[in-house]
């Protein structure tokens, strides 16, 4: 097969890796995985761990489905995909509980929610069923990285403007009961924007990111 002889890092394969970072970003262009982008971006740390967990699940499920792509009966393919994704998620959850207990507590319910992340099913359906394992691997890395970037950007702004912190550190100074007790920008009357902590602001942040991205990348603008 010609496909097998292709160079491992041919231009086409590299673009599988880099396209989802910008031109074909799962969140801002494909508009998948919005649900978790709203839910876990209040703080930076859970967003990062969530991105890593999604990366793990997406890489393995993409490769496994790609290996089985000629065996899976098409009538039950969605169920089989779900089964594989769900099993991987349970394994991630169990391993985290045993070896990284603190991280598992941090993520709590969101590990289970990876199953419902549309990016994963979307990539399995759209890509893994029709391509070989190496390409599926690159596609998974690219897409989960594209997802991770957006998640981190949203969480950065939400945690910074909403609670005045980054990764839990008070980067804008400490807010005391009175102006005199406060330090940093709080000393001059700055207030955290509590609205940033609520889900609607995540959606608006995504909107702003899409706007910025499209004004820089004119390819994305529809006629």
């Amino acid at each position, binding site marked *: 097969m010609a496909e097998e002889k292709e160079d491992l890092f041919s231009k086409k394969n590299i673009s599988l890796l880099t396209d989802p970072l910008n031109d074909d970003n799962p969140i801002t262009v494909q508009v998948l995985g919005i649900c978790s982008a709203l839910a876990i971006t209040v703080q930076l740390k859970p967003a990062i761990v969530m991105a890593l967990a999604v990366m793990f699940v997406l890489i393995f499920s993409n490769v496994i489905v790609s290996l089985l792509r000629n065996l*899976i*009966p098409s009538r039950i393919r969605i169920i089989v995909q779900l*089964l594989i994704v769900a*099993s991987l998620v*349970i394994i991630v959850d*169990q*391993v985290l*509980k045993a070896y990284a207990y603190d991280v598992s507590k941090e993520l*709590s319910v969101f590990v289970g929610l990876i199953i419902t992340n549309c990016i994963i099913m979307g990539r399995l359906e759209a890509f893994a069923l029709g391509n070989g394992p190496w390409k599926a691997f690159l596609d998974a890395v690219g897409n989960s990285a594209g997802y991770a970037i957006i998640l981190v950007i949203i969480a950065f702004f939400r945690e910074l403007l909403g609670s005045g912190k980054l990764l839990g550190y008070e980067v804008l100074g400490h807010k005391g009961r009175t102006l005199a007790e406060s330090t940093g920008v709080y000393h001059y009357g700055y207030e955290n924007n509590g609205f940033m*902590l609520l889900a609607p602001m995540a959606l608006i942040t995504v909107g702003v990111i899409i706007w910025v991205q499209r004004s820089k990348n004119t390819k994305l603008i529809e006629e």
Partner: protein
Amino acid sequence: MDRNSNAYTFIFAIITVVIIAAGLAFTATSLKPLQAENVRKEKMQNIISTIGVDANRDESAELFKKYIKKQLVLKADGTTDDAVEAFTLDLKKELHKPYDQQRFPVYLAEKDGKKYYIIPLFGSGLWDDIWGYIALDSDKNTIVGASFDHKGETPGLGAEINQSWFEDEFKGKKIFNDNGDFVSVKAVKGGAKPDDIHGVDAISGGTLTCNGLTQMLEERLKNYVPYLKKN
């Protein structure tokens, strides 16, 4: 074999399910002891953290032994029940029993020659269970430390109850008023008054979790009143 035939579909489904089920069962069983150990150590860590002992999870078992001198299980009237072990008692199950059959564990701690009473708590937050520990000073009234945790509260909002800035608010608060009546400690929306010895600031955006916490404190601590007043 035809990939679209019913027979193939059934065989494929059966084989896949069997393999995955075996894999998951194996993972779950082999990791279970490690997970149970984590939970046990964390519980010890949380209990001793209320009297100001900061232990990491690995050394918690040793320090727990050092500081916790006695573990008692109380009946509703405040007398002890020696037939039950305090540490393994499941508070969630106890709450579903009739009141006079419920058992209430209490840990007697001693640190630097001072006696403390550590009371475990259990209740409901907004989404799921919340629990915690409250340590009372030797006057059986003043809170010296609190530790809370939750199963699935909203991260960044209600989930903040397990953060030290919230837990530290409880230090110095009292559960009885000047007349010796039980009043508990409340998380007050909009912030407690600075001189309120029975109130702490609730978490902005986490009001429902805080209401659950207030309710948990009141309902659980109430059960210990006979014991605390007696000795």
